[in-house]
């Protein structure tokens, strides 16, 4: 049954040094506020999993918290490179970063298999490409009916998954809407989970019969953090801060400007700062 906690308490309770952590979000609903709390609490030796590591993972990597990254596309979408991640891979700053690389199809299937409590997933992929030569976790099985050889990927089973959702009700049930990515799978595949939400409501009220909801008993901690996805967005609440994504290219290009920005905006800040961003980018009609 989900517990309502403060963000510092939720991260302190559920994220441990050495953990494998998935902070998921496919452009939408990226859990920035929670990720920043992980940075403030200086969790160490993390293995981070995400299909599309973006600025948040760039920040975690640049701050030296990450031992290994499991991913399928690492960039600043529509802008360019993740400079901190590149600096770690190319120059080992602040230290060497181990990587395990898959395709999107593989990662999406791996989350699905994790949620389904299977040890691996089967899909048709990786034909004629080099990734299987450098990733020993890309293997295959033979179809027992047709003889076709298909690709496999180990299931993703994080120690803890962290997502941002739209709202929770008083029982701790959690609702998502819009681009839902692999977030539901991430929570169901994980041993523990933290869900930050824009608001907590008495109950969800009238809704689509097939609404995307994680029942309270599948969730670890629920934390209200208004604006907690900024500069990502929350459908119906506030828009993506595309200007920030563009601006991050300059902030992150040099180590000094990056560290200065992190110091001012993460280390010496807190979850409350996100609410102002939610107001700044608020969607007119809800």
């Amino acid at each position, binding site marked *: 049954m989900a517990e309502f906690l403060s963000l510092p308490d939720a991260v302190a309770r559920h994220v441990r040094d050495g953990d494998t952590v998935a902070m998921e979000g*496919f*452009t*939408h609903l990226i859990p920035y506020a929670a990720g920043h709390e992980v940075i403030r609490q200086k969790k160490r030796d993390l293995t981070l999993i995400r*299909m*599309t590591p973006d600025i948040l993972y760039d920040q975690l990597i640049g701050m030296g918290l990450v031992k290994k990254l499991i*991913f*399928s*596309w*690492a*960039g600043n*979408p*529509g*802008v360019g*490179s*993740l400079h901190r*991640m*590149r600096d770690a*891979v*190319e120059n080992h700053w602040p230290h060497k970063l181990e990587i395990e*690389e898959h*395709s*999107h*199809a593989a990662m*999406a*299937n791996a*989350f*699905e298999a994790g949620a389904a409590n299977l040890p691996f997933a089967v*899909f*048709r*992929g*990786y*034909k*004629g*490409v*080099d*990734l299987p030569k*450098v990733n020993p976790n890309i293997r295959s099985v033979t179809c027992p009916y047709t003889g*076709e050889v298909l690709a496999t990927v180990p299931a993703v089973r994080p120690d803890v998954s962290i997502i941002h959702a739209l709202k929770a009700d008083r029982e701790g049930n959690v609702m998502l809407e*819009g*681009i*839902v*990515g*692999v977030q*539901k*799978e991430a929570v169901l595949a994980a041993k523990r989970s933290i869900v930050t939400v824009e608001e907590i409501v008495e109950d969800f009220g009238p809704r689509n019969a097939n609404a995307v909801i994680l029942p309270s008993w599948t969730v670890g901690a629920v934390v209200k953090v208004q604006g907690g996805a900024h500069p990502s*967005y929350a*459908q119906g609440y506030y*828009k*993506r801060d*595309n*200007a920030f*994504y*563009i601006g991050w290219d300059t902030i992150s290009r040099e180590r000094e400007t990056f560290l200065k920005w992190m110091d001012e905006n993460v280390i010496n800040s807190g979850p409350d700062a996100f609410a102002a961003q939610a107001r700044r980018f608020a969607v007119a009609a809800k």
Partner: protein
Amino acid sequence: MSTYSPNEIMTIAASRLLTNDDVCFVGIGAPSAACNLARLTHSPKITLIYESGTLSTRPTVLPLSIGDGELCDTALTTVSVPEMFRYWLQGGRITVGFLGGAQIDRFANLNTTVVGPYDQPKVRLPGGGGAPEIAIHCGQIFIIMAMGQRAFMDKLPFITSLGHGTGKGSREALGVKTRGPTRLITDLCVFEPDADTSELTVTSIHPGVTRDQIQANCGWPVKFAASTVETPAPSELELTVLRDLQARTKAAHAA
């Protein structure tokens, strides 16, 4: 006739290849511009799908990312990402996939992973994302890339997604049943795989571009088709719609 940039004719030439019957798996950047230009001009019924899960979307501005709210707001519906890759891409429901890359070879294989050795890369690129499976599951692939010596490589350091492998028959030998890259649209010309060898061959040259220019921007000896045509210049309508779209987009992203 208006003047236009190499990037504009590239986008416009790509958009002309699309039809109302196409179901497109759209990538960010030039593919997204080309697909939406087609939708706003000659193919209003074209179906656009972004890998973030948005089915049949009709954005009024181009998304900066693959999952901008605009895509979801204007979609018929939005599915989860596992469903997108299982039922929709692997399901064989996409007629045209768009790809770009940092580097390409003469058989339209692409590299978006690394420059230099994988374990000690000189440049770490973003990685494959959806590309390895887009390349094999879509009915056909259109590639959009600006030409240049560092992009059009004689030999790729890493193959991220399959084009025509080592030539005619490679895809079939791997059990892949889709057509693969049928067009490479660049800022200078359009390539198509040769019917006998599958090597990329120039079939259409943009107005004012010379064969020498094309060769100067390509890392392998360029093959030209027996008869090449001149790419029709962008029309006023095409340019106006594309520029309006990009102006709206720029304003929206700066907001």
